[in-house]
Structures are given as C-alpha cells and as structure tokens.
C-alpha cells in the first residue's frame, strides 16, 4: 500500500488567546481509495488525538467536512487520497474566507448570514402563481442539490477580497426562489440582488462550478439572475450597463468599441475618475481607436438580432426532470 504524508495546518490559540498557525506532518500507509475523512479519523485515533475537524454524515450530504485539500476546497468524505496526493503529499487546511476557530474548523456563521440575507424562504406577494406546472421546476432543480457545505464560498475569488459580496451558494439559493412559481416577490428580489455586493460583483471566474461537490454550478445561476434582473429593468449600474453595451457594438461594428465602452459603462463622471488610469494606459499606446475594425457581413447580425427580438427563442439550460423513485 502507498504511504501518504499528511501536511496539516494546525491552528491553536496560545496563552494570550491569539490563534497561531503551523503545519504538522503525519504519515500513513493507506489503500488509494481511502477517503481523506477516514484517513483523518485514523490519524486522530492512532497518532494525535488533538487534531480537530468537523464531520458527520460521511456521505457527501451534510457538508460538514468541507476543507482545503491540496489547494481546493472539497468534502473530505467524498475525496479519495490518491486523487489529491501531490508527490505523495496531501495538504489539509481550513476553508478560506471564513474565520478559523481551531485546526480545520471554521466559524460558518458569516457564510450562513449571507444565506439569510437573501431570505431563503418563499414570500407572499403579487407574483405568486396560482398553479404550478411540472415544467416550472426545470430551473429550480438546478440548485436544490446544494448542501450548503460552503466549498464554493471558500474558493470564491471575489469573496477573497470582498466582505460585501453575497457569494456563490447564497446567490444560487436566491435563484431558486426567483425561479419558484410560488414566490410572490420575484421582482423585489431581483432588485435587491442587483445592488452592490450582489450578482454583478461575481468575477465570472467559474471557480464555484469546479469546486462544487454537488454540481450545482452557482455561476450559471448568477448569470441567469443577471439576465432576469436586466429583463426587469434593473440596468442602472456599471455591470448591467457594460453587459448591454455589447449587443449594440456587435451589431454596429462587429467588434467592441472599447473607446466608448468605458463612458457607457461608468458614465461621464466615472470616466473622469478613470482618467488617471487612462493616462497611465496611454503611455504605452493602450488606448483603443474610436473606430474599431468592422467585420465583413456584420449586417447579418443586425438581421439575426431583429429576428430574435421578433421571435425570441428560449435557450436556457434546463435541469433534467427528477422522477421520484
């Protein structure tokens, strides 16, 4: 059986109550398909009873054992040691973007406060549908697999630099309510989600798609929330203004008119604020031409655009229908 080295981040309070961080190494001989959680339990039982971590269901359903495993946040119970060993070494650390309490345990309070911020329950209101047909769940079902483990929140590149950002899991949950026919406040939700720290602060890095152990694809839900928000007229912000500039340019020029894109995204005042950056870019000739190259046959796109405006087609991805066993 192969021997694995576990390099574990130990976080413990010193005499003054200040958290101190260090790495400690342990070795174990294990079959390749052992889960990281089983390995941790073996370490705790046989080598060091002080290693602290959370775990519960062992079946990738409770989300308790999420931790950084070799650089990415994963469920320890769902991860085989062989898939994450780098030259025989497996590095374990607590989830990021959350306060560490001890060793591999974090305070999940901030994460759940973001979930509460989006009001994770159906609300009464004027948009509540009287009947629910079976196709209406093709959007809801995308995100109901979420187990609130926080893997996406821990790996989120925007959360790393922003306290305000709601984060992928909570936004995916918000999409679930916006898509639910029984929800009475869909538009009000979209308005709130279009504000600072909401859907427009996502970098679109897709880290949450690859980190999610349940294939929820939070970023895809965020993209759909942006579309729905703009459709409801919540277009007053750099994010939506920037998004809306694209289809105008593509029809007119074929390419983006980067020269006027700035002004259209952040407005005149914003552009003046950006002037310092613009001068900095100008020093190396990095200011676009006001007349971008025009693609051949760009008029085809104008026709296509008008055809689609007249007869819209639904291209949204749909979740597979879940048939109860």
């Amino acid at each position, binding site marked *: 059986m192969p021997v694995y080295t576990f390099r574990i981040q130990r976080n413990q309070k010193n005499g003054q109550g200040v958290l101190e961080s260090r790495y400690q190494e342990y070795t174990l001989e294990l079959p390749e398909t052992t889960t990281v959680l089983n390995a941790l339990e073996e370490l705790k039982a046989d080598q060091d009873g002080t290693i602290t971590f959370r775990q519960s269901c062992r079946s990738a359903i409770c989300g308790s054992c999420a931790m950084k495993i070799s650089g990415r946040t994963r469920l320890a119970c769902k991860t085989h040691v062989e898939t994450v060993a780098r030259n025989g070494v497996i590095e374990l650390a607590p989830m990021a973007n959350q306060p560490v309490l001890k060793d591999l345990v974090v305070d999940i309070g901030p994460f759940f406060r973001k979930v509460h911020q989006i009001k994770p329950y159906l609300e009464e209101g004027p948009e509540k549908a009287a009947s629910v047909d079976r196709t209406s769940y093709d959007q809801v079902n995308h995100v109901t697999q979420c187990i609130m483990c926080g893997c996406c929140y821990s790996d989120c590149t925007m959360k790393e*630099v922003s306290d305000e950002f709601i984060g992928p899991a909570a936004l995916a949950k918000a999409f679930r309510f916006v898509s639910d026919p029984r929800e009475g406040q869909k538009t009000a939700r979209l308005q709130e989600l279009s504000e600072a720290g909401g859907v427009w602060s996502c970098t679109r890095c897709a880290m949450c798609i690859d980190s999610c152990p349940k294939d929820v694809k939070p970023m895809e839900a965020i993209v759909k929330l*942006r579309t729905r928000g703009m459709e409801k007229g919540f277009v007053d912000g750099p994010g939506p203004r920037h*998004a*809306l500039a694209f289809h105008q340019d593509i029809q007119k*020029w074929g390419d983006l008119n980067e020269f006027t894109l700035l002004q259209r995204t952040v407005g005149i005042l914003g552009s003046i604020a950006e002037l310092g950056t613009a001068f900095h870019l100008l020093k190396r000739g990095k200011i676009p031409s006001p007349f971008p190259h025009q693609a051949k046959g760009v008029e085809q796109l104008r026709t296509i655009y008008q055809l689609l405006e007249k007869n819209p087609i639904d291209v949204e991805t749909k979740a597979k229908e879940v048939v109860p066993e």
Partner: protein
Amino acid sequence: MSLEFAYYPGCAAKQVQKEADWAAQAVARELGITLHAMPQATCCGAVSLRESKPAFSLAVAARILSEAEAQGRHLATICNTCLQTLSHANYRFKNEPELLEKINGVITQAGVRAYKASINVYHLLWVITDQVDPALLRQKIKKPLNGMRVAPFYGCHNLRPAEILAAKGGEKADHLDRLIELLGGAPVAYSGHDKCCGFHVMLSDAREMRTMVANNCLNAKDAGAEVMISPCTLCDMAMGAYQKPAEDAVGKEIKLPEMNFAQLLGMAMGISPETLGISRLHVDPSAVLAARKVL
C-alpha cells in the same frame, strides 16, 4: 504535419493588446502553424452578451464557428474569455442538437451558413504545447531562459469550467508550466496561478479588482518570480497594465514584469523585441531578460 487554424485573436488583441497578436503571429510562423484570418468574425460577446441577450450570443458564436468550419479548420484563439465563450457555445451545440437546429434556423435566414458543430475550439498555447513537435520547439529555442523563474498565470477562462474546455482545462492543467520548462525556465509554484485577474469586474468593483491583481502578483513575487506570463490578453491587461493602479490601491510596490506567453516564447526564439511589442509592456522586463541573457 501541417497545423492550420482559423485564427480568432479577439477584440483586445486587435486594439489595446496588439502586442499579443504580433507575438502570436511571429511564433506561429516559426513553428509552422498557419493562422488563417477570419474576415467575417465579430466579437464573441464575452461573458456579457450571454447575460444580456442569451439567444443572440449563441447566434453570434454559431456564426463565428461556422466561418471556421467553412474553412475546414479548427479555431485557435489567444484570448481566454473568447476561448471560454466559444467553447461554451460549442459544447452546447455538440450536446444539444435541438438547440443547434433552432439557432441555425435563425442564422440561415440572415444568410449565414448553418453550423454543423464539427470543429473544436483551441487556445494557441494548447496547440503549441500539445500539437507542435517538442523537438521542433526545442530546436527553435535560440535564447533559453537560463533558469529564469517564471510565474505561470493561467487565467480562469483557460481552466474553467473544466467540463467544456476540450479536456485541456481543469485543476490539473499544466500546459503553461510545461512551456516554461521547455524554454529553459523554472515555473514558480504560487497561490494565484489559477485565480482571477479581476478583468471582468474592473469597472464594477474597481477596488476589489486591484486587490486581486496585487495579491496574485505579490504571491508570485514572494515565491521568487522574476517575471509572470499569461495566455490571455485580458489577464495581460489586468496584471500588466493595471499593476500600477493596483500598487496605488494597496499601497505596496510590486514591479513584476508581466507579458503574454507568446512574447516570452518569442524572446526565447530570438525574435526581435520590436516584433514582439515588448516596449508596449507597462512593467519593463528588459532587465530580467538581460540578466538571464535572453535579451
């Protein structure tokens, strides 16, 4: 084997990041890769068009992919966001025949040839690391990097979502590291190689974007990087041109030369700095290149 591609440089490489296009064309010529122009190709719409006009964005992508298909060639790009956008559409076209049929129904009415979903979307970097004979590449290296410590910055849209990226993306992708080794450099391992450059929130979340740039660059520098390379014109813009604004935002000096992968590859091939547009870089790499005898 002849390597011929329909070449899709993307908007940034035609405007503010011209040097990436110059470098790509120059290295491709040396490596026997023929990049054929796509005169009808428009902007791919990036992450934005998919949000504002989802069906139109797929039609725009289908029109671009169809032009390459009509040439009988796969498409190669040098922008990660174009790569992801076109790969995403292509993935859907290949897996959802009814969707392709609907989109073709619209574009053909405008006189666009129907797309048959027969081609693949590649990054030029993937072509160079996976399709060019490594022996040929080694033979073309006239000025090896002599152990230069190079931080690979992959960029999100070169890696994720792994599902759609022709099996080249994902967590285990190492193509940029392999290229650095081939050039005689030492790839630097650092936290940030697969993170976000912030380009797409540059205007909506300006402070956060600058913090991302600073964190990525400083992590690379702390890990010993002398220079950073990326395969993306947008990452180049963020990590290079916006490095000074990032320094101002976080109040720390960074001064890490950042360049497009094709520029460093071109330098190692002995192509002139003028051809590669080295003078257009915001953080001048000349001293680092000279110290390692690449310049």
